[in-house]
């Protein structure tokens, strides 16, 4: 499919000819699946389409012109930063324009104000390296080093390094947003100049329209520029070494060090996490799924299963390991002090340090999320919550029980309770639950599980991150609002009356549930007879 000739010609006037195409070969490359985040599931198969045209803008002005044309011709469009993280960042309508922003790679580091102003084409690892060169760091989100920094920060932005400054939105400073009709909104200090150092800015803080705990995947407009806070780290160099796939950053042990502590119980885990936050030490505290350890050790998929096969539900339940990153932010002395405090904390809870390599294979710079697909071929982080530490710790086991009912198609994971970490100096606990399957299996239960998780969160009172963008809005909105869905839809219709910007978000999952026959059996909530979408959309 291709978009109408007059629309294409209007768009073609914006960029050089080599930056726009409706050739079927070029379009085929932008297919969402069949692999990737949420790979092979019903949402990907039913809700994603090939674009009708792809355009590669270079500037904010280019984007404004593109969306104005789309608005005028009532053509849907979707902003696309890297295409990673699946179907929800791909076209959902026939003949949609995909705005691929990889050419937008402006990067300016503000050494005075300790922030960087970037465009959407910048991914994490180059940004992190620029920070490290200056003795600073940015939190590379769990999405991985290869994700667009802007896309990640408006959608997610969590990692074990969120220990110091948890809420990702607090790292977003000045911001520039192209609204669905092409109007430019500047937020924070960018509203009065070119310097994005300050995020709070003049008037109401509009950053919240882009994200709550997670974002709305561009359906409220396109972020074209963002200033991001850089955090102080330490001055020693982290030296990369090894040949791929066995590479790592060698850490200067007197300033940066991971230590793994084995503790006797889940309660000890919680207690240590809480005390570390209370003492305001460490740069990361995390309890990772046990199978991640097997991924890290295995040379390949088959070896992973050899290793995982040695585990049992009992061994997984009784394995309590906290990984702590110590950083000598100010000095070696400070780090020694922190380590002493840490050892006291673990002595109190009956923990003991295990030998840990003086290197970082993940998190600081690489955040190697691509390894998640090794075991089964398909993966998704089905949910994450950000609340208190005890709440986060309760979330995983609850999920594990539900997951057992859906295994298969999920991988046999021996009831692993997922990933937990302390954030914001212990003021928050984070829990993320990950699921893995082989996309060649019947994946309908994966879609059903997705929705059942929402119901579980509502039932158990878990404060989920995934409301509108990844779950049915009419299921989650009334439960968490009680009028969250109404408010969000009013906002959408105000900013985007024609719903041209990445439709049918934020109710795409609702539309999917209505379309997919196999979802009927799990649909237990009320929806309007007609969704409040303009005719012809969704």
């Amino acid at each position: 499919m291709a978009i109408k000739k007059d629309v294409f010609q209007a768009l073609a006037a914006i960029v050089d000819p080599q930056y726009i195409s409706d050739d079927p070969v070029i379009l085929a490359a932008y297919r969402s699946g069949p692999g990737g985040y949420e790979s092979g599931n019903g949402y990907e198969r039913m809700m994603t389409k090939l674009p009708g045209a792809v355009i590669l803008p270079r500037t904010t002005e280019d984007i404004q012109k593109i969306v104005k044309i789309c608005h005028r011709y009532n053509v849907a469009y979707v902003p696309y930063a890297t295409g990673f993280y699946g179907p929800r960042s791909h076209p959902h309508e026939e003949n949609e324009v995909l705005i691929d922003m990889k050419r937008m790679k402006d990067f300016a580091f503000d050494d005075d104000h300790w922030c960087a102003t970037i465009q959407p084409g910048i991914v994490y690892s180059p940004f992190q390296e620029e920070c490290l060169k200056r003795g600073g760091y940015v939190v590379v989100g769990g999405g991985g080093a290869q994700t667009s920094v802007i896309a990640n920060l408006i959608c997610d932005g969590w990692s074990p390094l969120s220990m110091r400054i948890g809420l990702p939105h607090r790292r977003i400073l000045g911001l520039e947003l192209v609204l669905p009709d092409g109007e430019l909104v500047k937020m924070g200090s960018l509203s009065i100049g070119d310097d994005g150092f300050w995020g709070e800015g003049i008037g109401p803080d509009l950053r919240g329209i882009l994200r709550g705990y997670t974002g709305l995947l561009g359906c409220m407009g396109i972020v074209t520029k963002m200033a991001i806070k850089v955090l102080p780290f330490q001055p020693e160099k982290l030296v990369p070494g090894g040949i791929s796939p066995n590479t790592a950053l060698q850490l200067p042990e007197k300033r940066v060090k991971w230590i793994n502590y084995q503790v006797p119980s889940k309660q000890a885990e919680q207690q240590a996490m809480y005390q570390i936050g209370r003492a305001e030490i460490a740069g990361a505290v995390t309890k990772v799924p046990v199978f991640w350890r097997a991924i890290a050790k295995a040379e390949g998929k088959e070896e992973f299963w050899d290793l995982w096969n040695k585990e049992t539900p009992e061994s997984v339940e009784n394995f309590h390991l906290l990984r702590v990153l110590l950083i000598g932010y100010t000095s070696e002395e400070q780090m020694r002090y922190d380590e002493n405090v840490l050892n006291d904390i673990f002595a109190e809870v009956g923990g003991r340090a295990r030998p840990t390599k003086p290197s970082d294979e993940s998190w600081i710079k690489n955040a190697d999320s691509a390894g998640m697909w090794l075991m089964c071929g398909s993966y998704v982080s089905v949910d994450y919550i950000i609340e208190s530490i005890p709440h986060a710790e309760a979330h995983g086991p609850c999920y594990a029980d539900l997951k057992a009912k859906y295994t298969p198609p999920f991988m046999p994971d021996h009831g692993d309770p997922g990933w937990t970490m302390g954030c914001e100096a212990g003021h928050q606990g984070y829990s993320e639950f990950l699921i893995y399957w082989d996309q060649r299996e019947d994946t309908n239960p994966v879609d059903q599980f997705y929705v059942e998780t929402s119901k579980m969160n509502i039932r158990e009172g878990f404060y989920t991150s995934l409301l509108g963008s990844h779950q049915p809005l009419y299921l989650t909105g009334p439960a968490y609002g009680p009028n969250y869905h109404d408010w969000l839809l009013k906002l959408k219709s105000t900013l985007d009356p024609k719903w041209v910007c990445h439709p049918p978000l934020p109710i795409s999952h609702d539309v999917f549930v209505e379309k997919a026959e196999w979802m009927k059996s799990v649909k237990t909530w009320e929806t309007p007879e007609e969704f409040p979408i303009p005719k012809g959309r969704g």
Partner: protein
Amino acid sequence: MSKIHETMKDRYDTPTEKVSLDVKDLKNFRYDMDHCIKCKGCYWVEHTYMPGIKFTTRCPSGTWNDFDAYQAAGKMRIGIDVQEGKLEWTPKLLEVIYADPLCGACDVGCKRNLDLEIGLTLEALRVKAVKDGAGPMPAHKKVAENIAKSHNQFGSPHEKRTGWLTADIKVADKADIIYFPGCSASYTNPEIAQATAKIINATGASFSLMKEERCCGNTLYSVGMIDEATEIAKRQVEAVRTSGAKTLLTSCAECYRMWKVDYPKMLGIATADLGFNVMHLMEFADEAIANGSLKLTKKVDLKLTYHDACSVSRLSDPWTPWSGERGWMGCIEPRLKRRRGTTGLYAQPRNILQAIPGVDLVEMIRIRENAFCCGAGRGTKEAFPELANFAAQERLAEVKEVGAETLVSSCPFCKNNFSQAAKENGEKLQVMDISEVILASL
């Protein structure tokens, strides 16, 4: 079969399928195409080594053209449509498939985490293009004609193949080592063949040449003309086996990869079963320096940098044929040791250059498995000279960034492409083959 598999197999409904690493059938790589996750590890420099905001990519074609189609992630999706017959062979499709030096950066990038056979998939796509009558590109057909007619890439007279030999080079009738200069060093870059021969002579080892040396078939194999390339492979391997030589030594990276990897691949044997060793001059010289038979005594005052040619680095892991079954969770049996580009000649050139008195070796920013390909190899410069030039310019910018005065490689394709690009820029940069640098120190 794992315990989990045994206990759970009745509950899962995973299909099993016969697969092999045979590039003659694109279907063998369907799982790989289906499981690309768009992480674009194929495109970026490995994140641990990411140097900062400049020089961030290692994919020449994806850097040259910004559409996803030119990155491996896009090509995997296109490949699915090609296999299913959903895309017609159009000039654009051929451009996407062929505007690519098949440098292996995507393959090692993917094998950091996912172990998908990206490189073989790209080769299989070209084989299919030829089988369907759409490929290769016209420029490749010309090269193929040249090879068929005069056994070299350039269409030069076959009888002039040994024209590089000079009176001061000693060639034995029969020896343990056969030196295979390849087309470039025989015709367009005699300085490389001469330097290599003199280096071997300097160690006291003797070498012979093939009775009737012919093109290695690199371009034919690389553009998907597998039947023609296989005929060449059979002839070449048989000739060396018959000669009784123990080692086939090359000075060209592309020839090295053909002999070591692609001949065994086409012949359905392992590299170890060739019956002789395949060695690049760099391995030979490194060993000779270490055992004292090659003495680098003359001072060479150069601030130089080394470019890792793809075919002696990430593309050069030995080949082992494999066929088997893929089943539960995508696991395969029998087990396969993946070629991840870990055994490339990374240390040897650096050992050699650092052993030369006076040489100041400065590293570029993207090195070893992260090196940015020169863009000339595997049929690219012939069919897409603008891509080859783009890639070379990208690399030259990096040379300038590190302040090197001389750029050294181990492949005539790299040398010629860099030289041409530097000349276009009016740069004073000296481009040398490593054989020339070694010779300068003897």
